[in-house]
């Protein structure tokens, strides 16, 4: 499904971004702006899935990979993941993969 997604809905983690996971959450640092953000457990899991996928992932592809990993028991939807990806884009944590 992910491969069928519109290219502008696929994202890769900006390679310049630094992040560190602690107690299931994460802090991220954007060198370009000097901004630091704290991510909750859900967003941290999305970020962890994105790391290493240089071709880019969309929300539908991220979701099963998250379920495969450790996520809180609460049910999550593609829309939840998509919203997190949009937040990541707004914050500058992710970018569109090179075509």
């Amino acid at each position, binding site marked *: 499904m992910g491969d069928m997604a519109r290219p502008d809905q696929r994202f890769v983690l900006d390679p310049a971004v*630094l992040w*560190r996971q*602690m*107690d299931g*959450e*994460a*802090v991220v*640092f954007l*060198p370009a702006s*000097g901004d*630091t953000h*704290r*991510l909750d457990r859900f967003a941290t899991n999305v970020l962890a899935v994105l790391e290493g996928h240089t071709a880019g992932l969309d929300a539908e592809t991220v979701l099963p990979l998250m379920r495969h990993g450790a996520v809180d028991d609460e049910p999550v939807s593609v829309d939840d993941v998509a919203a997190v990806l949009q937040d990541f884009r707004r914050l500058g944590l992710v970018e569109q993969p090179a075509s």
Partner: protein
Amino acid sequence: MRLAEIPEAQLRHRLAGPEGVTLVTGPFSTRIRSPVASVARGLADLYGDVRVEPDADWADFHVQVRAPRTPRRWFRPQVLFLSEGRSVFKPLAFHQAFPMLEWGLNWCVTANVKHHLLFHAAVVAREDRALILPAPPGSGKSTLCAGLVASGWRLLSDELAIVDVEAGTLTGLARPVSLKNASIEVIRSFAPDAFVSDPCHDTLKGTVAHLRPPRASVDRALAPVRPAWVVFPRFEPGAETRLTPRVRTSAFMELARNAFNYTVLGRLGFRRTADLIERSVCYDFTYSRLDEAVATFNAMEPPSA
């Protein structure tokens, strides 16, 4: 050579002259010049155990505390703090000369030091494990720091956590602890044998006095310590003593907010702050009774290294 080995008359003479006195506090040396008697008195009272460089031809910081060269010398006299010959604060009333020196010495570090990661925090240590107390003014940080030091903890600083960006360890300044308002009497009652300077009234921070650093802390100022606890203290009148675990990411954000140069150091600042937090257990701490607060920290076990 320790400052106490200089006879007071000679100390006053040297401070007033062109050579000044070069103090070594932790990793920094500061050449101080001042003709103001209360500055010489404060240094003699509070820095006696601190090492001086008798023939230093180099120092990290060069500071002066003196009256402005204006008619104000005779009418409501004021005092200036100069760093590298430049006045960096607004003039203060003359009787505030020594507190102004202390504030100026803090400023020298925070404004100039780029090769350490600096946080606004008190730091004390037990053995080689550091308790870091980041907090804004008015949180009871210095009072707690003074209480712990009077109870045997090693003083690194009541104002600045200095992190070696290579090793991730902390180093100390072991300078006097600044006490304000009610905390002056709290510490005098809590530690009657400790030396607390005469209070200076009507400063921007109210009444201030300083606790002399223990000699053992001064002598070990450069011995590195590893982070063990990051605790955000808050004095609240009448509150129960309460130590509450804090999620590390939240502690990270709060610590970064209390940094002087986290953003300037960029990636290195992020990595070292993260390392520090990962190696520590983090808490919020509320207290009103200093004896209970000190007992709480005395009972804490450090995390495994």
